[in-house]
């Protein structure tokens, strides 16, 4: 690893990964290699065991009662596409928030063109959503609520438990986008009344890119049409897609090498514990915010509470283009950040940073206090140099 690089772009994809992930992927490529669930030989069975074990570990992490409720996908985007295109029908009304990522908004807007009615509930300038506004948005034909668990722009955590209670009371389906929380923030699908949970493997779960999944509450799969059908290794004698979980939504040979890495990633999370990971990341965020709060021209966005946020901080330096700040951070200081709109234009409209965007730092378990100090010093220099 390049020691001079400070990687603060973990909300895009996490890096570095724990060495166990790379070892698990190499082991699959070198020693296993078989296609899971397709053949009866030992290498195929070994591959299928890896995949099953991954479902089991993910279930443990999210308190899912049965590993077969987990559909493995390419990423959160594919999971959300299944949940949106497969589930909604013309005439349905859905509720979402003003803090969503395009992986929720674009499929929803595409469905709007097919006769789905959408209410976008606004959030305040810190990205906080008042659950009362969800209740107010409910109509006769409301079918579901699509909500991000935490904003990828501000790190603001949404009141998912409250929304879950509302969904239960009104008989609505709750779909949560956990791309920013899976692995670094506690998730309990039962306690939070989550019916559909979309997650990605390559962020805080420390898996490789090309992995992710969708939890589907028991029984709900019957109301969801698969968006991709084909070979599953099961029911080969029939030419229609199996109707059972998870095969209904898993056509085609899976990304087994990626799943092997994801399994090691989830194992890593389970061994450390989400609480310990969150605790460490919370300290880094607090230290960073305390260090830059007083810098001339600095504008920090998002939630004040450390408890209700993920390790994501968006900021700007008054009078400076965020893209120029990010470039300077990279070139002069070796700090990798992400500037712009972060695939979430409505979130930036909510915090009033549209269309210029912000600079985003996103930390992981592998960042250090030393790196935070270096980044504070870098921002001191950059903010001094403005005009």
């Amino acid at each position, binding site marked *: 690893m390049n020691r001079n690089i400070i990687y603060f772009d973990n909300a895009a994809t996490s890096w570095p990964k724990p060495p166990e992930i790379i070892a698990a992927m190499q082991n699959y490529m070198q020693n296993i290699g078989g296609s899971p*669930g397709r053949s009866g030989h030992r290498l195929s069975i070994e591959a299928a065991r890896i995949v099953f074990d991954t479902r089991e570990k993910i279930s443990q992490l999210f308190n899912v009662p049965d590993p077969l409720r987990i559909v493995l996908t390419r990423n959160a985007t594919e999971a959300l596409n299944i949940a949106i295109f497969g589930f909604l029908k013309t005439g349905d009304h859905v509720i979402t928030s003003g803090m969503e990522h395009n992986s929720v908004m674009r499929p929803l807007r595409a469905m709007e063109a097919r006769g789905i009615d959408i209410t976008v509930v606004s959030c305040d300038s810190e990205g906080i959503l008042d659950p009362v506004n969800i209740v107010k948005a409910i109509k006769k034909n409301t079918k579901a609520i699509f909500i991000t668990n935490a904003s990828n722009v501000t790190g603001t955590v949404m009141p998912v438990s409250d929304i879950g209670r509302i969904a239960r009371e009104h008989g609505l389906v709750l779909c949560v986008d956990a791309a920013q929380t899976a692995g670094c923030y506690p998730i309990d699908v039962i306690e939070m009344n989550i019916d559909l949970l979309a997650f990605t493997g390559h962020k805080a779960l420390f898996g490789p890119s090309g992995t992710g999944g969708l939890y589907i509450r028991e029984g709900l799969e019957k109301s969801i049409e698969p968006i991709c059908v084909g070979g599953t290794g099961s029911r080969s004698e029939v030419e229609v897609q199996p109707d*059972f979980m998870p095969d209904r939504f898993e056509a085609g040979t899976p990304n087994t090498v990626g799943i092997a890495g994801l399994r090691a990633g989830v194992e890593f999370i389970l061994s450390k514990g989400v609480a310990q990971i969150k605790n460490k990341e919370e300290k880094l965020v607090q230290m960073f915010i305390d260090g830059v709060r007083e810098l001339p021209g600095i504008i920090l966005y998002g939630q004040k509470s450390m408890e209700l946020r993920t390790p994501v901080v968006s900021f700007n330096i008054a009078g400076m283009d965020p893209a120029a700040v990010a470039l300077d951070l990279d070139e002069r200081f070796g700090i990798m950040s992400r500037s712009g709109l972060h695939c979430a234009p409505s979130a930036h409209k909510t915090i009033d940073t549209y269309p210029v965007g912000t600079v985003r730092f996103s930390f992981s378990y592998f960042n250090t206090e030393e790196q935070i100090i270096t980044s504070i010093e870098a921002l001191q220099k950059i903010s001094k140099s403005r005009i």
Partner: protein
Amino acid sequence: MNEKPQYSVMLFKAVSYVLKAEKILKKEGLPHKLIPVPKNISSDCGICLRFEPALQSKIEVALLNKVEIEEVRALKE
């Protein structure tokens, strides 16, 4: 002379169901083996659980409400 089959096989919907059953049986200490589904039993590809017929009810109890069993068949050698 001895007409009783030496083994039975249990068939499931898909390999992931077999593996879920395998984990449960391992935990319960009930002997079994994963084998490719014999062609005279089903044309489906994949694997099934082989076990001694005397264990059938114990296995069924262990899997009850946990893994859906498709069918149990005698395995004739």
